[in-house]
């Protein structure tokens, strides 16, 4: 009887310990989310293979499709150690492909202090079979804001990575200056050796917006053209453009004049793409009284912008635009939301953005969805859009 009692007590203890262990396992995970992340970025390589990057349970994962997004290869992990990867708001991992065929991926690792992060870069030299050990792009490794990575590779294979950086704000706080440092700063680093290493980072501008994505494109010579939300006097958050050449000459100009005055994180970054010889197409969101999505052109010499043209329905949250230009044809896609779900609207211009055909809804989904991305392969335009309920969508555009 005594033995039986002992056995019963022992079993009780075991069951109890098991229960505790089970509950701990369920409730104590905090380093990463179990929710699926919907953000996705894609690029075609020179052969028409679609390369895709996403985030899954703390890993940046890459896969590819040879049938325009219907079937994908088994994905491979890019980072070797679990990280918290930026996927909310305007943040997402990015993928680009160099003219020599190298595949480049960037992402933001969120650190434990609020708003802090590191910008990571990884390269594949064997057409995506393997990725080399990732590297942090910036030499400043303090636990401060380095977030909202953007990457561009030009026709000569030079890689340009830009991000939002708060080192100047932190410095100003320490110096306790009379005038407050407003916003964050933009920094960039260039790789001239196909991603082997990056030169020391340099500043583009002070007082950028803190939490909006940066848009990058190239001029015909391969110089970088960047567009971002900038903090102007009296708390106005309009957009700026910069031309950055390979010798680090930087020219910054104001690009939009919406006058949205707000001390907030808008979470709405712009889009920019090169048009003809005259300059660039731009699309952006403005809040405030004139709330809505806008399109404008800006020339690449005097940096004068055209009057903004409104697109989409502000009542349905039109925002998060993507732009693509092939010859005189311009594609502008954006996301809207209504009671039944999210959908992507597309507007097309056939004369370099002067006149626009009627915008059309091209895809809907009922669940969560990413922002749209327009990409091209041999001058053919595609819309890339990831959704939770309807899966990944690649749509060939007329």
């Amino acid at each position: 009887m005594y033995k039986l009692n002992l056995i019963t007590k022992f079993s009780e203890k075991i069951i109890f310990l098991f229960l505790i262990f089970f509950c701990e396992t369920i409730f104590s995970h905090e380093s990463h989310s179990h929710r699926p992340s919907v953000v996705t970025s894609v690029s075609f390589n020179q052969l028409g293979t679609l390369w895709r990057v996403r985030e899954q349970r703390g890993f940046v994962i890459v896969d590819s499709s040879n049938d325009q997004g219907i079937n994908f290869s088994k994905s491979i992990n890019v980072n070797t150690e679990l990280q918290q990867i930026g996927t909310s708001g305007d943040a997402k991992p990015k993928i680009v492909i160099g003219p020599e065929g190298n595949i480049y991926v960037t992402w933001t690792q969120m650190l434990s202090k609020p708003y802090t992060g590191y910008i990571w870069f990884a390269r594949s030299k064997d057409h995506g079979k393997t990725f080399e050990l990732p590297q942090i792009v910036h030499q400043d490794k303090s636990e401060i804001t380095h977030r909202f990575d953007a990457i561009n590779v030009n026709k000569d294979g030079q890689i340009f990575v830009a991000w939002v950086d708060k080192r100047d704000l932190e410095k100003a706080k320490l110096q306790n200056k009379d005038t407050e440092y407003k916003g964050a700063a933009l920094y960039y680093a260039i790789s001239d050796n196909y991603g082997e290493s990056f030169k020391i980072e340099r500043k583009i501008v002070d007082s950028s917006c803190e939490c909006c994505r940066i848009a990058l494109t190239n001029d015909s010579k391969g110089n970088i053209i960047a567009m971002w939300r900038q903090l102007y006097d009296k708390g106005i958050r309009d957009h700026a453009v910069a031309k950055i050449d390979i010798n680090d000459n930087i020219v910054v100009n104001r690009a939009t004049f919406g006058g949205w005055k707000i001390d907030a994180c808008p979470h709405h970054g712009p889009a920019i793409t090169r048009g003809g010889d005259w300059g660039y197409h731009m699309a952006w969101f403005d809040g405030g009284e004139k709330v809505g999505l806008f399109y404008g052109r800006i020339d690449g010499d005097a940096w004068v912008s055209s009057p903004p043209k409104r697109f989409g329905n502000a009542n349905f949250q039109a925002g998060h635009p993507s732009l693509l230009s092939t010859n005189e044809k311009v594609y502008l896609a954006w996301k809207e939301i209504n009671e039944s779900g999210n959908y992507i609207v597309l507007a097309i211009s056939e004369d370099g953005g002067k006149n626009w055909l009627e915008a059309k809804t091209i895809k809907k989904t009922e669940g969560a969805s990413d922002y749209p991305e327009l990409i091209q392969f041999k001058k053919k335009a595609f819309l890339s859009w990831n959704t939770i309920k309807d899966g990944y969508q690649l749509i060939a555009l007329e």
Partner: protein
Amino acid sequence: MKLKILLFFLFFSNFSIAYEFMPFEINTRNAIEKKYINQPLIISFWSIDCPYCIDDLKKLGKALSKNTNVKLITVCIDGKESPKKAKRILDQVRLPEHEHYQYAEVDEDKLRYSFDPTWYGELPRTYFYDAAHQVTPLSGKIPNSFLDAWLNK
């Protein structure tokens, strides 16, 4: 027995940290409005990634400790974040006892749209309900003058 007590303590301490946030869903706005009918109310939407939000929460906490008739509700919009991390930030802000929610819907855009179709995702976003539930929405940092005027209305 000692082991049992210790394990119980461990289990419940973790349990309570993980579940202190109430889930914010499509119908939560209606439920809050019903629950606090005829009471002044401030609903503050914030994110771990938004520096302005933390400043605003501190400001609200200070103001409402002197205006205890106004109910405070905070909503962390980082549905994908662990509640532990969100709670750690909320603890640093030292708010008075209040109801705090975290987004529970996977489609955060839809949740925002259903709460207020004229809110475009900018943060902080604060809703000031007077006793009759006339709502004044405010995007961005709350100006002191606005807060004082609203509290003294």
